[in-house]
């Protein structure tokens, strides 16, 4: 073993061993094993293990619109207090314009308004005030809406019993959901499709003309029935109490009422509820969920215990889902599904099997080809190639990367490209062997000369892979990860391992001349 430093052999051998050892858990994974080491395996992407990927978009426009409505209500209240007549209100896309009968008190109105809302843009022009949602104000609404939505989505998914879900913010107004093992996401989509805003309102039975004209007076709203669109209720706009005061909700069954949802208020909610039911005996109380009346029973007696039941024409599943939604709380704004990808376990298993076959056959073909062309040296390169594969697998497992179908394609591609560095070296050795006869000098020159080419060539591939990671999503990232790991591993195996093997081979075979 001429001039081959011990430390170098040691490094190469130990790195190779580490690569093989850490690949073991992924290769002989055993679900039931208690050994932590064996659980350290590659994560499979949703496209391989089956599952659902959902991308939800928070409908911020609804919130902006709501906030503009709030502005209008507040201005109305203020001007009523100040006894100023409002002539006209224009609600535009991003601002409200209020025209007043006179302009004397307009500054006072502005000041009172600013006490309630800080940070909005308000302009006075003669007898009109325009209030605008500026970018900062929108951003505040946006951020709090996303934060709240994330929390509610997480609660709802947890309640649905999905195991190991991944829920995260994606971009400015989106939420990304990965639900492994969920084959049919219909139920999840149902759960997320409702805002579940629950409120209790006193019904106004006296003002019948409002309902006939379908025109709600100030402070009232008209809400349709859940089961019959033509049945409408005139309700106080102000809710007596809302879903935010609920502490618990459960699906329950009542002999007379059928499936129902029983709920319990917190202390504050119980007090409010008790007070309102005490003062309004004889009136009806509407339970409103997402803009429709579920039920509007008559208040026969004061309810001070802070609990009650909601009845409707529910079946068992609907009652329990509504309970889940009420427990988790209301979403600040509706969520819209903008992307969905669901893969059944069958397709995932097929993909893994096909990927394995392609990898093995690709590998065998490349190995045979290398031996045909380079003989013994080809066989040495094949050892490097196999170790290369072990290293990729162990790195994937250790860094906790996710293996996707394109990721498998990346591995197969790497098998083909990984021999490139070896080929570069062998071709250099071939050239050098024409110039001189000293075996070890030939090999040394061959490796040295090939080095800079290998680096340049592989770094450019890495640049492409890194950009793929930066701009790609989901499965494509999986591809860029395996490709990058493959490129890095192949540089190591060619420059270190093949080098080591070639030196070992030449020393032990005691070659006097080199013909490649």
């Amino acid at each position, binding site marked *: 073993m001429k001039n081959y430093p011990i430390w170098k052999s040691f490094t190469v051998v130990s790195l190779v061993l580490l690569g093989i050892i850490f690949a073991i858990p992924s290769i002989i994974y055993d679900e039931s094993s208690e050994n932590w080491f064996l659980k350290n395996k590659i994560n499979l992407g949703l496209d391989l293990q089956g599952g659902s990927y959902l*991308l939800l978009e928070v409908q911020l426009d609804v919130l902006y619109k709501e906030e503009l409505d709030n502005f209008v209500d507040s201005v109305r209240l203020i001007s009523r207090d100040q006894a100023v007549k409002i002539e006209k209100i224009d609600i535009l896309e991003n601002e409200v314009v209020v025209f007043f009968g006179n302009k004397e008190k307009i500054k006072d109105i502005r000041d009172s308004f600013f006490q309630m809302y800080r940070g909005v843009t308000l302009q006075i022009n003669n007898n009109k005030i325009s209030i605008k949602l500026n970018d900062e104000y929108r951003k505040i609404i946006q951020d709090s809406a996303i934060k709240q939505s994330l929390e509610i989505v997480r609660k709802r998914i947890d309640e649905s019993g999905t195991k190991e879900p991944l829920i995260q913010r994606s971009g400015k107004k989106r939420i990304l959901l990965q639900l492994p093992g969920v084959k*049919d996401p219909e139920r999840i*989509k149902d759960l997320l499709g409702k805002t579940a805003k629950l409120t209790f309102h006193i019904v106004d039975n006296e003002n019948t003309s409002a309902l006939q004209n379908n025109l709600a007076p100030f402070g009232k709203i008209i809400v349709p029935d859940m089961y019959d669109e033509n049945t409408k209720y005139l309700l106080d706009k102000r809710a007596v109490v809302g879903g935010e005061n609920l502490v618990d909700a459960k699906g329950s069954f009542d002999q007379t009422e059928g499936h129902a949802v029983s709920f319990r208020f917190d202390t504050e909610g119980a007090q409010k509820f008790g007070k309102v039911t005490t003062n309004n005996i004889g009136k009806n109380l509407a339970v409103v969920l997402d803009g429709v009346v579920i039920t509007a029973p008559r208040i026969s007696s004061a309810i001070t215990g802070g609990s009650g039941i909601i009845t409707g024409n529910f079946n068992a599943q609907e009652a329990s889902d509504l309970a889940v939604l009420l427990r988790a709380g209301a979403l600040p704004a509706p969520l*819209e*599904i*903008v*992307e*969905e*990808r*669901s*893969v*059944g376990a069958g*397709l995932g298993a097929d*993909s893994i099997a*096909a*990927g394995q*076959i*392609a990898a093995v*056959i*690709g*590998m065998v*073909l490349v190995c045979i080809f290398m031996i*045909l*062309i380079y*003989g013994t040296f080809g066989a040495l390169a094949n050892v490097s190639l196999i170790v290369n594969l072990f290293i990729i697998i162990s790195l994937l497992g250790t860094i906790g990367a996710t293996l996707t*179908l*394109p990721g498998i*394609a990346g591995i*197969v*591609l790497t*098998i*083909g*490209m990984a*021999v*490139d560095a070896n*080929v570069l070296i062998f*071709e250099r050795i*071939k*050239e050098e062997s*024409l110039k001189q006869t000293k075996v070890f000098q030939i090999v040394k020159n061959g490796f040295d000369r090939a080095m*800079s*080419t290998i680096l*340049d*060539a*592989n*770094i*450019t*591939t*890495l*640049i*492409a*892979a890194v*950009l*793929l990671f*930066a*701009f*790609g999503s989901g499965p*494509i990232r999986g*591809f860029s990860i395996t*490709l990058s790991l493959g490129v890095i591993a192949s540089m190591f195996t060619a420059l270190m391992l093949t080098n080591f093997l070639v030196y070992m081979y030449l020393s032990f075979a005691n070659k006097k001349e080199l013909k490649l």
Partner: protein
Amino acid sequence: MFGLNKIIPVEPNINFLGLRRNFLIFSILAILISIGLLSIKGLNLGIDFKGGTLIEVSTKNTSIGELREILSSSYSDVSLQEFGNENIILIRLQNKSNQESIETVNSVKNLIQDKVVEFRRSEFVGPTISSELLFRGFQAVSFALIAILIYIWLRFEWQFGFGAVVALTHDVLFTLGLLSILNVEFSLATIAAILTIAGYSINDTVVIFDRVRENLRKYKKLELVDLFNLSVNNTLSRTIMTSLTTLLALVSLFIFGGEVIRPFALTMIIGVIIGTYSSVFIAVPTLLIFKFRPQDEDD
């Protein structure tokens, strides 16, 4: 061992540069046709970039015709296709709004529930997402070209960077043109394939450029055309070897890797062939535009 390596001579002497005019004309024609195809016929955009719904089902004793009959009574824009074998059917629908699509998936599933053994996958991409994905894909490819140009510029001279990017742009356009002719589905995976082709092709080009640079230092008197020819010949066996091993792996992926990965493998196979060709016949001749040495100016 088997002496197969003798097929490619150690020091081949093929006059690649002598043929450069023919290949240049061929490539320019190919690029023009590609651009024409892309602007007239366009690419067969998958749902990633076009938006819509895709459902893959496996059936038993139900023909594709039966399913088509059931679905086309409710949807005018439904298209069905066998996927790999006759028991696996791909259903595509073009939808307008997000909400509509979610309902579509449900009602399609209900319509064919009793004819289907398994719903293998369902994908839905909304219109906002698909245009974003297309934009990001375009961005990734452009940034990759620029980043590679900068890297080559730093490591070599800028002329090499220019040559490499001309070759790369050639590869990308040529590949896209062929994808258009062959009607291969263009998806996110295709973008990945194209970026990998860019990486692969540049890899090939860099190896030859590396030799050009070395020879420029070594043979100070040699004429540029001869020097470039020598460099291509020096690296020829490596160029062929690496392309072949990569193609072996890709062909294996194409045949055995499953239906989902097939368009990706096909794109890569096309790209590797074009990339290898362009490194030799486009990237190197492009360098001839530039005068690398003072004495060349006298020629």
